[in-house]
């Protein structure tokens, strides 16, 4: 026993040997504990407090409560299925088809990552709604897009890049020799696909499915806009907080939303993703033989082109909405919406959001890489706990993060040592960082696992300190991943709505919250202009990164994969 303790102590001493690194690590850990774990604990304790009993009673009495949960589940299942299929199609075409426009398809496949909330839903209502340009004006029908079907369409388009990127990476890593072996044993293409390729992709498909399910559950923007009277948990939490400012009801509903999200996410994280059949053999891998049969190739190509066209139409329509007088009614050109966003009332939202995101991005990036370093390169007790905590920010729905922040920080703590954070810009930055850290950690972990530890060891044995090694060896090697993480963080912060909607104040205007405001009061032109400006800011930040740092960076990897 004493030996065990001594060993553990030695591990910690090794961690603290190096001042700079130790401080960085300590800050990251304190941050995770204070801003990720503590708010969740607060939500749990309030949802179990005696005041919450009344909320449970009324929830159980209301006949619609079960319906809301059921609605949420159906939506999650629908989005997970359709989104995974879409992702699979795009990845398959990318890897297995020898067809033109593949680069274009790839860009379409990642475009939704940078899209602001509401953009897709607004455009879809405008195109396919009851008075939609296509459904009503072109086809003459009054199609009711509101509800489950509209939600599945909009959310699948918004989130399928998750499935696409997962499956793309997996398909590229598949060892083509397996397929070659099957083919040379006489199996036809279809049989190879069915019995060799598909089984090897099962973990990827399952993990896409589960991730999309969790993302769909967490989404707030789309149910508000295109849900009609189809209420899901996220929109109901929004009503509880915004409409009644009932924090107890918010906490209880958050726990109901949190449990399935966490369960599924960690099932995915710890079980499915470990059952990978991807074989890194060290042997040269190729992409195998592309499919040449025109009967398979062209229908797949056509389907992919059709869907890409639809996505392009939906995004293009947002630009149309931003430059016409009244979207859907009066198509006279105007610049007044852009004027409103760029120079008028909206300009403060634009600068505020960019400023807060720009502060949050490097903080999240640096902490993410430090945590990744800690998890991959250092052994100590509680390492898996750190790993777990760092991805929590991804598994916890944004609305829950927001409510947790209100509950935890709406009064001064420790006798005023920590001031009341709600109402400040700082709390929005903190929410952005919490939401961005997981992506930074994950890209960092993936990159560090690929770098042989021998290089670190060589540096250390030549006398470099741990901090020097981190700075001179580890950091340069994981630079592309670090930059990818930065870009993701920035894009994620700029487009984040659910986490900050309960935290915005009159002093700090946030673009996504303004978009909600404009869309809710029917000023779709301004909302569309906000969306276009937001997309432009994110794209130019990627471009800036690309221009400054040049090739072999995260920016390039994001675009070319």
């Amino acid at each position: 026993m004493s030996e065990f303790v001594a060993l553990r102590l030695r591990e910690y001493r090794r961690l603290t040997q190096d001042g700079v690194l130790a401080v960085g690590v300590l800050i990251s850990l304190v941050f995770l504990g204070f801003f990720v774990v503590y708010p969740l604990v607060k939500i749990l304790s309030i949802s179990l407090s005696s005041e919450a009993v009344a909320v449970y009673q009324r929830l159980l009495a209301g006949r619609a409560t079960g319906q809301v949960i059921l609605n949420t589940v159906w939506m999650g299942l629908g989005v997970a299925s359709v989104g995974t299929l879409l992702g699979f199609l795009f990845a398959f075409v990318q890897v297995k088809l020898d067809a033109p426009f593949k680069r274009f398809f790839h860009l379409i496949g990642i475009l939704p990552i940078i899209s602001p909330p509401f953009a897709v839903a607004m455009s879809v209502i405008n195109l396919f709604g009851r008075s939609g340009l296509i459904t009503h004006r072109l086809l003459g029908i009054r199609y009711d897009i509101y509800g489950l079907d509209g939600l599945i369409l909009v959310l699948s388009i918004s989130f399928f890049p998750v499935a696409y990127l997962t499956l793309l990476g997996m398909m590229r890593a598949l060892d083509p020799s397996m397929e070659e072996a099957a083919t040379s044993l006489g199996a036809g293409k279809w049989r190879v696909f069915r019995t060799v390729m598909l089984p090897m992709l099962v973990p990827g498909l399952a993990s896409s499915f589960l991730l999309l399910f969790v993302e769909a559950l967490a989404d707030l923007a789309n149910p508000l806009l295109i849900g009609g009277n189809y209420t899901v948990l996220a929109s109901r939490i929004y009503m509880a907080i915004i409409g009644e400012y009932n924090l107890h009801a918010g906490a209880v509903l958050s726990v109901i939303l949190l449990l399935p999200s966490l369960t599924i996410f960690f099932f995915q994280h710890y079980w499915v993703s470990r059952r990978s059949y991807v074989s890194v053999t060290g042997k040269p891998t190729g992409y195998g033989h592309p499919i040449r049969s025109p009967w398979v190739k062209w229908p797949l190509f056509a389907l992919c082109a059709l869907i890409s066209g639809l996505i392009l139409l939906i995004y293009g329509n947002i630009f149309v909405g931003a430059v016409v007088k009244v979207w859907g009614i009066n198509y006279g050109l105007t610049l007044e919406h852009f004027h409103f966003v760029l120079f008028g009332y909206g300009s403060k939202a634009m600068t505020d959001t960019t400023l807060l995101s720009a502060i949050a991005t490097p903080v999240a990036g640096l902490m993410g890489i430090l945590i990744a370093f800690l998890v991959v390169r250092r052994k100590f007790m509680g390492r898996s706990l750190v790993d777990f905590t760092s991805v929590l920010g991804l598994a916890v729905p944004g609305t829950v993060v927001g409510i947790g922040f209100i509950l935890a920080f709406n009064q001064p703590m420790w006798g005023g040592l920590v001031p009341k954070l709600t109402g400040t810009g700082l709390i929005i930055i903190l929410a952005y960082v919490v939401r961005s850290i997981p992506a930074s950690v994950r890209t960092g972990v993936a990159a560090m696992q690929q770098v042989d530890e021998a290089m670190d060891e060589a540096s250390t044995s030549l006398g470099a300190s741990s901090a020097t090694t981190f700075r001179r060896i580890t950091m340069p090697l994981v630079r592309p991943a670090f930059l990818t993480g930065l870009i993701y963080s920035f894009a994620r912060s700029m487009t984040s709505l659910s986490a900050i909607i309960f935290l915005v104040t009159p002093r700090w205007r946030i673009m996504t919250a303004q978009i909600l405001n404009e869309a809710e009061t029917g000023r779709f032109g301004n909302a569309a202009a906000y969306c276009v400006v937001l997309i432009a800011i994110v794209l130019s930040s990627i471009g800036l990164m690309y221009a400054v740092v040049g090739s072999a960076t995260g920016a390039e990897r994001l675009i070319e994969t």
Partner: protein
Amino acid sequence: MRRFIILFAGMLILSLLLGACGPQATPEPTQPPATNTAILSTAVSPTVEPTATEKPVTGPLTVLCGPQEDWCQAAVAAFQKATGIETSYVRLASGEAVARLQAEAGAPTFDVWWGGPSDGQVDAYTKGLIEPYVPPNAAQIPDVLKDPNGAWTGIYAGALGFCSNKGVLDELGVAVPTSWEDLLNPKLKGNIAVADSRTSGTAYTFLYTQVLLHGENGAFAYMKQVDNNIFQYTKSGSAPGTMAAAGEVAVAIIFSHDCVKFREETGANLVVSFPIEGTGFEIGAEALIKNAPNPEAAKVWMDWALTPEAQAIAATVKSYQVPSNPNTPVPAQAINLSQVNLVNYDSIAAGKAKSALLDRYAAEVREGAAAPEK
């Protein structure tokens, strides 16, 4: 590698700089320049007691704004220009506002509540969230448009009505509705929009009008029948009008002046009509928030908002309510309230009944569609 270090250092420095100047922009009350004081004393009407003008009133002032976004923006900009008081606003629906004030009781974010049906202000006053204050200019406002106890003062008035998209109605083969009963037409199923009475003052006016017409039980029976035809309950009272303008629904139950606004703004084929049985109306009110962080600035705002100059701003952003100050010119587009059959809507009684009626509304009409706990 070097480029990378430069970039990274740059980002860090940038973030530090931004971080350093970020918070400064927030809490410090800015001392207005001497010239602003001069503007202030001329802009505020001479009836203000001398104590108010002796020491300069400074910002920041935070307004809880009830009317449409663009009116809020225009009013805040004009007030800042006239007084030099740094002002920001948040637009909240009436029920949202009461919920928020209740949650923040003791330490409110807001100084003054400006606009939205006075039922909401009465409800808040009953709950001890309003500090009575009679601005000097309230002397110019007719008695029917202000609270005898001085809890709130009216800034405009308007009537509830139907806002129909004629094109959609024609497609459905339904005539423009002219009675509350017309809304029960099965052909209108899924084609009527109204806000949620718990968040929206507009929609509460709709509910309380039914109470006046049918008695409480009859009102809920009616609300449940209409519920069959409702497409969506929105958060904000005027939002259904934008759905009608876009042709997503046939009829919106909103304040008639909002319908005129949407018609002018969008050019959509919108028709305003009123129920023959009689309809409710609102007195858009302003009130001082209890324990407001900056009550002095709030009082300057409240007095300013009653001046004809301030009230004339509404028409410039196409908000055609009837202004409460008789000296404010009534816009030509305003609905002539004397030609509408109005129910005898007592907003003080309506406000006092609000909490209980909404509990019943939540349980019987909207059960489970939003959080049930009050």
